[in-house]
């Protein structure tokens, strides 16, 4: 928790391609616990949006209820925000996106907000392949109500209060892959190197981009026996691949000697270059992606990185065949059939 943030910024910090400074993407001061993983994720969001040079006012940030859902107040202060009700961010995001398809929708949620109370809304937003980036800040517990296990807590994990979680955990990434999300990734709040490019790729992908970010709860779930603790995750994670996101029209620079490079071209012509071992699974294949997750789970390893990508999937607007113009920009002339039409309708009812 920080009560004060110095207003001073180095005068020569360079602006991004759109002329915005990094501070244009910052938000209010966090009220989360000192050391909370969520703050690192907020920082990664700021960094990713800055690097992509997105106009801040074209981003819409949305959330539900919980520690994670409070965080939109701590980044992107020049973006409209909507802190809705518990577990219902996906429906608000759906409506907002239907109203204006030209904005960028960034949803932030937690494991309680998504995997328990909001499970129905989450999986159905995924099924719609809603064009948004959906980030879950996953700490395996309910922070604001003081540490109860959530549905993503691993079976056998032990929290600060000492009880063992006996229930099977829900793997949100696996569900997202199964139910039609076009881009699915997992990361760790302590791995900024990986998280920033993942967020950038998620923002560039059209359709549902889902990123599950394991984000330890320093107050209630960071003891050594917890599988969502900093220590555990650092010891037990493995990256699928390393990758660069090459935004549209930027030169490709990455080169790695003993690995193959898989290219995934996103809808906006950005390119993801995946650097991976030759025998690693193909991330554009849904089955291989799920097998890969399960194989690592069986070994007690948390798999991170891009887990699945299908850049050509149809999003909600494609499916509903809505017009290209944002619906909220249409006027009477576009929308009202007029009284002669009504006269004809009356006549048909006589």
């Amino acid at each position, binding site marked *: 928790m920080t009560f004060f943030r110095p207003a001073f910024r180095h005068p020569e910090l360079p602006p991004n391609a759109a002329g915005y400074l990094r501070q244009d993407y910052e938000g209010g001061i966090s009220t989360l616990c000192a050391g909370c993983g969520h703050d690192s994720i907020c920082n990664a969001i700021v960094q990713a949006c800055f690097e992509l040079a997105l*106009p801040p006012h074209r981003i819409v940030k949305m959330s539900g209820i919980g520690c994670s859902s409070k965080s939109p107040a701590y980044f992107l202060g020049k973006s409209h925000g909507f802190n809705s009700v518990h577990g219902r961010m996906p*429906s608000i995001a759906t409506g907002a996106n239907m109203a204006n398809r030209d904005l960028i929708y960034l949803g932030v949620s937690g494991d309680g907000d998504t995997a328990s109370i909001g499970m129905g809304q989450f999986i159905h937003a995924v099924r719609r392949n809603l064009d948004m980036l959906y980030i879950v800040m996953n700490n395996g517990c309910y922070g604001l109500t003081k540490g109860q296990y959530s549905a993503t807590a691993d079976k056998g994990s032990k929290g600060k209060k000492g009880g063992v979680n006996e229930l099977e955990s829900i793997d949100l990434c696996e569900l997202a892959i199964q139910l039609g999300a076009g881009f699915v990734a997992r990361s760790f709040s302590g791995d900024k190197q990986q998280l920033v490019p993942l967020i950038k790729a998620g923002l560039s992908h059209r359709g549902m981009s889902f990123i599950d970010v394991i984000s330890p709860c320093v107050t209630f779930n960071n003891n050594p026996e917890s599988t969502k603790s900093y220590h555990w995750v650092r010891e037990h994670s493995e990256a699928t691949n390393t990758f660069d996101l090459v935004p549209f029209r930027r030169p490709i620079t990455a080169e790695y000697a003993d690995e193959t490079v898989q290219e995934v071209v996103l809808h906006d012509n950005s390119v993801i270059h995946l650097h991976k071992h030759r025998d690693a699974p193909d991330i554009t294949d849904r089955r291989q992606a799920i097998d890969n997750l399960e194989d690592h789970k069986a070994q007690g390893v948390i798999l991170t990185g891009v887990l699945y990508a299908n850049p050509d999937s149809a999003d909600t607007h494609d499916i509903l065949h809505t017009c290209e113009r944002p619906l*909220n920009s249409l006027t009477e002339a576009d929308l009202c059939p007029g009284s002669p039409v*009504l006269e004809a309708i009356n006549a048909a009812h006589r």
Partner: protein
Amino acid sequence: MKQLESVNDFVVRFATVNGSGSASANNLFAKAVFRMGVPVSPKNIFPSNIQGLPTWYEVRVNERGHVGRRGDVDMVVAINGQTMRQDYDGLVPGGYFVYDSSRPLPEDFRRDDVTAIGVPLTTICNEAFDNVRMRPLLKNIIYVGALAALLDMEFEVLADSLRKQFRKNPALAEPNIRALELGFSYARDHHAGACKLTVRRSDRVGDAVMMDGNSATALGAIFAGATVVGWYPITPSTSIIEAFGRFAEQFRTEDNTGRLKAAIVQAEDELAAIGIVIGASWNGARAFTATSGPGISLMSEFLGLAYFAEIPAVLIDVQRAGPSTGMPTRTQQSDLLTCAYASHGDTKHPLLFPCDPRECFEMTADAFDLAERLQTPVIVMSDLDLGMNDHYGPPLAWDENRQYDRGKVLNAAQLDALAARWGRYRDTDGDGICSRTYPGTHPDKGVYFTRGTSRDEYSAYSEDGDTYVRNMERLRLKWETVKRLLPLARIKMTNAEARLGVVFYGSTTPAAYEAIELLHRRGIAVNSMRIRAFPFQQEVLDFVLAHELVFVIEQNRDGQMRTLLINEGSLPAARLVPIASYDGLPVASRFLTRALEEALAERGVILPKTAPDQGGTR
């Protein structure tokens, strides 16, 4: 036996099995009466399943334009063996029992005050038609033909309707018209003069239309520019969305691309449905959903958010019989309290009460203006009777010069022109309504954070008690503005000296006016008020205060409107007498008349006896 005898004034009931295709045959009959210039009112009384259970279709024919349900049945067309006994026993003395005489009538069907008219429907049908799959449908048309002959109707009107119906498939028109002829000629040849009920061509219909309220509601949303729909299927609201979808295909397809100028999202449940509406409205689109009581319960949390965060939303509640699943295919007006105060905390919502399809159209369109002007959810209170039955009524009308009222929304230029710091929840006009912005409007002005938590005038989170109270008081002030913008009640002061008043709303209207007319004919002075909106304007409270006794007619057990009147208007409870009709059928004028008579008698007002009108209200 004295047979019932009347011209253009009777009730006929078709007793059939659902899923047998009888609905369209019955509708053919009702439409033919209408096309002969006689006001008509059909009520479909159907079960909550798809196939095999009893269904009734009750058609009231009334030259004088009383199109509420009357109650009592003068003639039954008994096609359903399961309910034959009940249908026979339920006929009024002097009534007519039309049945399929392919099998003889059971021996214990021996009422001597009923005229039994046998038509061998099955035999006629099987002899004339080989196609086994079409037989059940054609049998329905045969009974319509027979009925037309019994009632002296114009055969050509029915035949024309069939031709129109099968315009796109003339091969089907031919057997249907033949079936109509077979029934018609059988009844004419075998039962000439047996029935003394008649439909005679009239000129009472004028420019009236026959339309269901749900279609009119969907049209209201189309004309008002709704573009985003979030919904979840639930009887009896589903046909609003289905109609909206059809009209959108027709009137909202983009010329050059063939794409739709609307997004209709079938959600996973009602919570998501209203969430979609709130998200879209927040982002500047006109959005709505339609549901029924159980959906309202599920949407309550979100309605509180929209109230507190001040986000427009239009919600149509097509009410059905509760509590819980209740009787899902029966009508009621029993969601008033749950809608008026939906959600936890101090929450309240404006309600509109349409009484016919024309008002369904107008009030739905108005609801979008109101919701955006007031930045709050507005609920249109329809019901199953109004929504799903065809209603005889005035045509829909749209003012060609009407502009949408999008409310206080600032664009980039207006934000630039602001002299003082802008606050999302700062009331600068003194009406309790603040200005809002859509996301993406301006690079660095007009941004705010929307939340269900308490906040100050600049939308910054605050748990300060004074700040919270200030905001709640502003919402109270806004509630006063709401009253100024809502439609006024329709008050009829037929007699300034009258000590009695009658209050009603929504689909109760035609039956209530009919009962009142009867009281007038008996020399009882009563004034009436049709409530059209909640919260109540002063006029509504004044009407109650101006009468010694006010009967409040409602289709619910607990007198929910009466409760609202007492609660919101601090009105004396003893003065407001509840009259309840809540068996799930549309309220009947005969029932109302009896209930009013009894209520008056209890209070020492004895009505003079008058000769009952044949077939009309007695």
